[in-house]
């Protein structure tokens, strides 16, 4: 099965080379960070988590969303997903990998990271987060590789695997719930301490992940002879639509309690995100254009997806999905973590902007994810094309 990863067209190798270059640049930037410390980032005493943890949070969502293909297929026997389910599982694997890497590069003392396992601390949500992420990575690798290998050999996957498949469904929900609990359990940060955070995370994740799957499925369809099926893509689009609407609803619920109650601590965060804060004649509003754009993306795409003419049009829907991802990324991968620190617990406003090396490390990690994704998808395509009798050297 692995042999498909080592045989490919020129484009395949060019793509891997492209990711490789970005990875190398990221590694270089990380080497500087290792030498000089986290001072090379834009983070500060007041905004002590930044881009890395934001990306981690966003990617946990992408990872969790594999459940949106696993659940309909294995629990509801939704036949259209027969060929899509592996695409979801093999998105989850690199997604979890990037999550772990984002956590890792955020550590001040990465060499000591095993202390989390050596001194397991059950009252720390971070310990649980690490455990569930590890578990999720193993589950998806296990399920994905075994089902694909069995498919290659033309037989049904072993019966015992069913247990792990069912287990992966609540597990997917758990990874994003626990990630939300990282934030939602902190009494000193009113912006995060809201019960709707975990549901919001899940809703936005189930809009983002399947959007990514739609884009990937359309690409796969175009560049290879393997067709995930129009019906599957349409079902995904429906899932995206519902999730996006629920996500927007949750956002409005959160915005209502914060704004209508008019409590300063809750209000400040929303002010910072959408209009900017003013103090001593200085305006703090770096996030404002982003957050406004994100809102526009989210509401417009949410509205557009309501129309079957758009939702089910394979020529249009991938582009809408790009904007859905942009919208949810701005919301979760940009606004959520940073705003929690502004204003600080001491009422100070320190803004945060990622630095160039910080961005390079981030891109490097995303490139590692993209690299693994490319290889895994190449394997899927190879297996599927051979099964369909097209020969292994297509692509």
């Amino acid at each position, binding site marked *: 099965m692995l042999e498909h990863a080592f045989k490919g067209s020129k484009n395949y190798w060019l793509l891997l080379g492209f990711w490789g270059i970005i990875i190398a640049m990221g590694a270089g930037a990380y080497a500087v960070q290792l030498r000089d410390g986290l001072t090379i980032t834009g983070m500060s005493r007041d905004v002590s988590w930044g881009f890395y943890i934001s990306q981690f949070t966003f990617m946990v969502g992408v990872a969790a969303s594999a459940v949106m293909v696993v659940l309909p297929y294995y629990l509801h026997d939704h036949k259209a997903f027969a060929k899509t389910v592996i695409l979801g599982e093999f998105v989850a694997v690199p997604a979890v990998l990037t999550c772990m890497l984002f956590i890792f590069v955020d550590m001040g003392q990465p060499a000591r990271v095993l202390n989390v396992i050596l001194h397991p601390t059950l009252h720390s949500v971070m310990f649980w987060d690490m455990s569930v992420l590890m578990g999720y990575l193993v589950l998806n690798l296990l399920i994905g590789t075994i089902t694909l290998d069995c498919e290659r050999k033309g037989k049904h996957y072993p019966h015992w695997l069913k247990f792990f498949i069912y287990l992966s469904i609540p597990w997917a929900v758990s990874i994003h719930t626990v990630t939300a609990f990282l934030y939602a359990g902190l009494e*000193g940060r009113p912006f995060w301490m809201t019960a709707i955070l975990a549901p919001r995370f899940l809703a936005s994740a189930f809009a983002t992940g399947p959007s990514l799957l739609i884009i990937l499925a359309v690409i796969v369809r175009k560049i290879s002879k393997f067709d995930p099926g129009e019906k599957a893509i349409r079902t995904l689009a429906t899932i995206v639509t519902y999730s996006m609407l629920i996500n927007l609803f949750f956002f409005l619920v959160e915005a209502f309690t914060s704004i209508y109650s008019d409590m300063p601590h809750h209000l400040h965060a929303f002010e910072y995100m959408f209009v900017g804060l003013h103090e001593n004649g200085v305006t703090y509003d770096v996030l404002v254009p982003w957050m406004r754009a994100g809102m526009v993306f989210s509401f417009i795409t949410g509205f557009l997806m309501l129309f079957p003419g758009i939702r089910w049009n394979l020529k249009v829907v991938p582009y809408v999905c790009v904007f859905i991802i942009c919208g949810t990324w701005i919301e979760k991968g940009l606004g959520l973590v940073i705003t929690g620190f502004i204003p600080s617990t001491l009422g100070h406003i320190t803004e945060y902007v990622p630095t160039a090396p910080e961005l390079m490390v981030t891109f490097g990690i995303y490139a590692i994810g993209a690299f693994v994704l490319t290889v895994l998808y190449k394997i899927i395509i190879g297996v599927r094309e051979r099964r369909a009798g097209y020969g292994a050297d297509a692509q």
Partner: protein
Amino acid sequence: MDDTRRKFLKKAGYASLGISCALPLLDAKLLAMSEETGTHEAAAKKQLAMVIDIKKCQNKQLVDAAANACHTVHNVPTITDAKGNINKEEEVKWIWTEKFANTFPEQVHARLERSILDEDVVVLCNHCSRPPCVRVCPTQATWKRDTDGIVMMDMHRCIGCRYCMAACPYGARSFNWNEPRKFLEKGRGIVGEYPTRTKGVVEKCTFCADRLSDGLEPACVEAANKVPGGKDALVFGDLSDPNSKVNLILNKKHTICRKVGLGTGPNIYYII
């Protein structure tokens, strides 16, 4: 070393148990909650605390002396930028001052006397009775010491995840964004007996646990008391001892704590 392995295996056992079933965790939490209700019941346990007289601490000389003493003893560097100005974003500090309005946000109202609003208030780690930083730390690098209630830091174990900084409602924790020794060498030098830190770990006030074991008072208390008019500006003692100096003051004067509504149980008291 066999002992540590056994401990580890035991913990690993608990962990796998916990993963397979999260209920024991919930159970333990509920049990802990029922034990913790009511701040007065816990008074029998030794808890070190500090009473800060805000009025006396308006003397800038006194506050500087206290902060200097602390930072010198513990080799806390003054982080500066390329031009030599204090780098506010990467500052490391154990004890410093904040404006009244920032220290006690829920005590501030529109008609509060201007002079109080502008007061500088000495702030440091509150050594909370239910510390959020301890709750979130994934490695027990920070923990609440049973014997005297100090929220301790183990700079050997800290992985620098900064979860504690996100959790602390008082901004009491500093992260070493940079190599601290570089700045010590540029500044006053490495003069304190306390080891310096390495980059990438979190640090904060430890109530001078190192000095207490030598029978000394915290450095800030000692220094403040030496300043003229600084007697009892900072008072340190044990809350479980009814005759301790802190209790004598707390029983007589009107004192407040920071953000009591959060339920962390801060142990720094302020005479307004």
